[in-house]
């Protein structure tokens, strides 16, 4: 087995057994990044020097018999997380020159756990996109087929882990931005419960929906990384003060007695029949493992896309107002006056999709439209949350496809934003309701990865990870690596 296909526990064991040092591990992945990163366009920055320093420090920690399961494990951060002294672009020209003076809480926590940052992953501009084609740094390619998109907005993170350029990448999910690219790239991607992971230092897109998470090969790896990321942060008022369970310890519980809800509305005519077949095969595995399937209905879930495309742009229009060319980020050349500074800095600094959402958001919050759009969307959101709550009275987890189709071609959906938005039709509900959800690879669809989505109750990450892990013990889809990156 090559070093880059090992699981996190295997890597940690290798480090402890001195099979390889953290520096060697970092070098191995940095070499892979150098070899494959540019073609995939997966990273915006590579931080080789600091990576080797951090790895050396991890080696010292390990040599002293200290450290934990993440010490010395390399990772790549989505370029939405602020990293002190390292450029944080958010995939935008607006922040092309921005070097954050502080670490995001997630970055600080994982650094504190001994993880080694190799670089920053490409992403859709300000996390707005479902194909990683809106990045100022150009599209990311899907390691399974360079003519296809990796999904978005965490497309760089997905490509990095799918090509095994790092065993772990952080990511964020506002409407599916972890789960959808994980599905399209054959990975395990977890979006935790809203409030489980601090948003401090994670550049905001839609504050009430954004949640940090990660992509890994397996649920077992995800459990270890979540352990390092989760927890209350006094600097984020929306993070929840609640103990963090031992996620890894909860893995391996039998699934007998588990009731799985099949979301009727997700098995609709928009679903690719091959995708449906793949998902149903995965469900059959769960039945064999002792779980019961039960159809559930979320009557309001059909409104999730329109509600999302009101709430998210509304919040984004306000969150992105700080990028005005005054204090940081892009500033236009020779502004004539204040208005010119604003208009040209923002006009030149933001890309088309970001501008579209800022305009949509500004419109829905305007006097006379607020009640009809924003307020109504919030009411719909409440209905959807109530639907989920009712369903979770009957079932333990809800399963369905993560996306309607496997990865699509670069450029295929860029001309019609609504077609693009519909890619998130199955993932948005969990964000609107603040629920934890993950995507794991199930059987391929026309030789491409497909994702099974598992949605859980608030703060039920333990169960989600266990349900995913037990499936992954029975199957090997999550171990598949594109031939070019084996």
């Amino acid at each position, binding site marked *: 087995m090559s070093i880059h296909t090992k699981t996190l526990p295997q890597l940690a064991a290798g480090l402890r057994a001195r099979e390889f040092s953290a520096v060697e591990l970092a070098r191995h992945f940095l070499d892979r990044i150098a070899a494959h990163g540019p073609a995939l366009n997966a990273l915006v920055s590579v931080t080789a020097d600091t990576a080797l320093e951090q790895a050396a420090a991890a080696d010292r920690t390990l040599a002293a018999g200290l450290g934990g399961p993440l010490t010395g494990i390399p990772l790549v951060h989505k370029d939405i997380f602020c990293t002190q002294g390292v450029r944080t672009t958010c995939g935008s020209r607006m922040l092309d020159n921005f070097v954050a003076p502080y670490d995001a809480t997630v970055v600080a926590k994982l650094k504190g756990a001994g993880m080694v940052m190799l670089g920053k992953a490409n992403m859709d501009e300000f996390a707005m996109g479902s194909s990683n084609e809106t990045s100022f740094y150009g599209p990311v390619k899907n390691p399974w087929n360079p003519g296809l998109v990796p999904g978005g907005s965490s497309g760089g993170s997905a490509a990095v882990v799918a090509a095994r350029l790092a065993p772990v990448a952080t990511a964020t999910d506002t409407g599916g931005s972890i789960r959808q690219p994980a599905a399209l790239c054959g990975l395990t991607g977890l979006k935790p419960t809203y409030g489980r992971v601090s948003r401090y230092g994670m*550049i*905001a897109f839609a504050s*009430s929906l954004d949640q940090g998470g990660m992509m890994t090969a397996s649920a077992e790896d995800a459990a270890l990384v979540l352990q390092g990321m989760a927890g209350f942060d006094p600097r984020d008022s*929306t993070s929840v003060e609640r103990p963090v369970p031992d996620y890894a310890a909860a893995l391996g519980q039998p699934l007998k007695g588990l009731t799985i809800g099949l979301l009727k509305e997700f098995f609709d005519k928009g679903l690719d029949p091959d995708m449906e077949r793949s998902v149903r095969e995965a469900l059959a595995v769960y039945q064999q493992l002792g779980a019961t399937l039960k159809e559930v209905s979320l009557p309001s879930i059909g409104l999730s896309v329109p509600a999302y495309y009101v709430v998210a742009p509304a919040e984004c229009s306000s969150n992105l*107002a*700080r990028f*005005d060319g005054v204090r940081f980020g892009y500033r236009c050349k020779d502004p004539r006056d204040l208005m010119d500074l604003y208009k040209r800095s923002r006009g030149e600094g933001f890309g088309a999709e970001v501008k579209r959402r800022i305009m949509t958001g500004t419109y829905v919050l305007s006097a006379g439209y607020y009640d009809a759009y924003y307020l109504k969307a919030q009411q719909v959101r409440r209905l959807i949350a109530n639907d989920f709550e009712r369903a979770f009275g009957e079932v333990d987890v809800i399963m369905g496809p993560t996306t309607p189709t496997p990865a699509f071609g670069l450029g295929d959906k860029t001309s019609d934003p609504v077609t693009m938005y519909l890619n998130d039709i199955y993932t948005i509900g969990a964000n609107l309701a603040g629920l934890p959800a993950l995507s794991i690879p199930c059987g391929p669809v026309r030789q491409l990865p497909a994702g099974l989505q598992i949605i859980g109750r608030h703060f039920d990450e333990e169960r989600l990870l266990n349900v995913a892990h037990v499936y992954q013990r029975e199957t090997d889809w999550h171990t598949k690596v594109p031939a070019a990156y084996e």
Partner: protein
Amino acid sequence: MSNETWETVIGLEIHAQLATKSKIFSASATQYGAPPNAQASLVDLGYPGVLPVLNQAAVGMAVKFGLAINAQVTPRSVFARKNYFYPDLPKGYQISQYELPIVARGHLDIVLDDGSVKRVGITRAHLEEDAGKSMHEGLGAHSGIDLNRAGTPLIEIVSEPDLRSAKEAVAYLKKIHTLVRYLEICDGNMQEGSFRCDANVSVRRRGEVKFGTRAEIKNVNSFRFVEKAINHEVARQIDLIESGGKVVQETRLYDPNKDETRSMRSKEEANDYRYFPDPDLLPVEVTPEFIAGVRATLPELPDEKAARFVSQFGLSAYDAGVLTASRELGAYYETVVKDFPSDPKLAANWVNGELAAALNRDNLDITQSRIGAGPLVGLLKRIADGTISGKIAKEVFEAMWDSGASADAVIEEKGLKQISDPAAIEKAIDEVMAKSPGQLADYRSGKDKLFGYFVGQVMKATGGKANPAQLNELLKKKLAG
């Protein structure tokens, strides 16, 4: 400036800076006067990724204010974003409260010129953050931005349109100013901008039920300017209407140098603030226990103190009102009365009279008084025991003020002790009578008014030290022959 035809209608929006040590959503200090941007953290600068965290001390202060104006404290109030672009607004929005303010529906009583009491409704008071400051001077073609003030906690106090003249508006403003300082939630410093006010002004014909179109006068930062600005604006609106024009809804700025208001922006140019609940902050939950805790810290409020001064010390409502205009002045007076309990009225006359005049003349407040409560008691005691007359006491007071010496020392040094020895006074009377035969004859033939002449002459002869009561009595006897 209301007249027989026109009635003035005014509502005030007062911004009081809360006296918290740190800002409302960050840990930066709030102290005034630091070098530009020395007190601006990443949160205040609106850096990408940072988040606000509410300073609970600001919540306690807002609740305290709410209790002091008999208002409803909202159990679950909500922060909202007020969106607009300006260089001194780093995030592109101000965090404020909109639909659900922390304090709703209270009131405050003010005393009008005729002594009657008027109740002014307070619509709401909400928490918000201040913006920074743009600086346009001394930087050539550039403007500077100082974000020290950005994120400073404010409470915005919005009155009902209950005020009917500039004088009433000022009385209300002063009362709020007194109150926030009593509560120790604001230092009230108007020069530094810790207490400032916008006035919504309109006029209507007397008897008219509908309000006229209003203009908002922005950021007037002294009591005197508030009165002048409103009076000017009222006159402008009346002139405008009487000459066939129409008042337009707009924001106007008062220029104290020219004593005029001028248009800043019209309603059409006004921002659409696109308020919506701030998703970065949870609703502010205020429990009954929290309210009870804050209530326990409420000091005696100005109206309560004034009522007590009236009943306990027999003062007039006016005197009591003046003495309770600040917490410090009330404390000074009570210290004086504690050591001079025999004549609280005399004490009030001196504190509100000579002392207030001297403070005013030297532009000092009571805490900076050159005569402390103890020394003033020393002076009052010498008046009460007849050592000096009230008139001489004023001379002693001035000397005390200038030199810092005690009353006794001044009296001793200047030989101002009152002459209360009947023989000495009689001797002085005899000498005056001997020098004024003509006046004496006139007096005795019925010109009673000349009595004052003899009092004056004797006082002059004794250097003003003759005990006035004794002098009166003895002089009457002597003149009668």
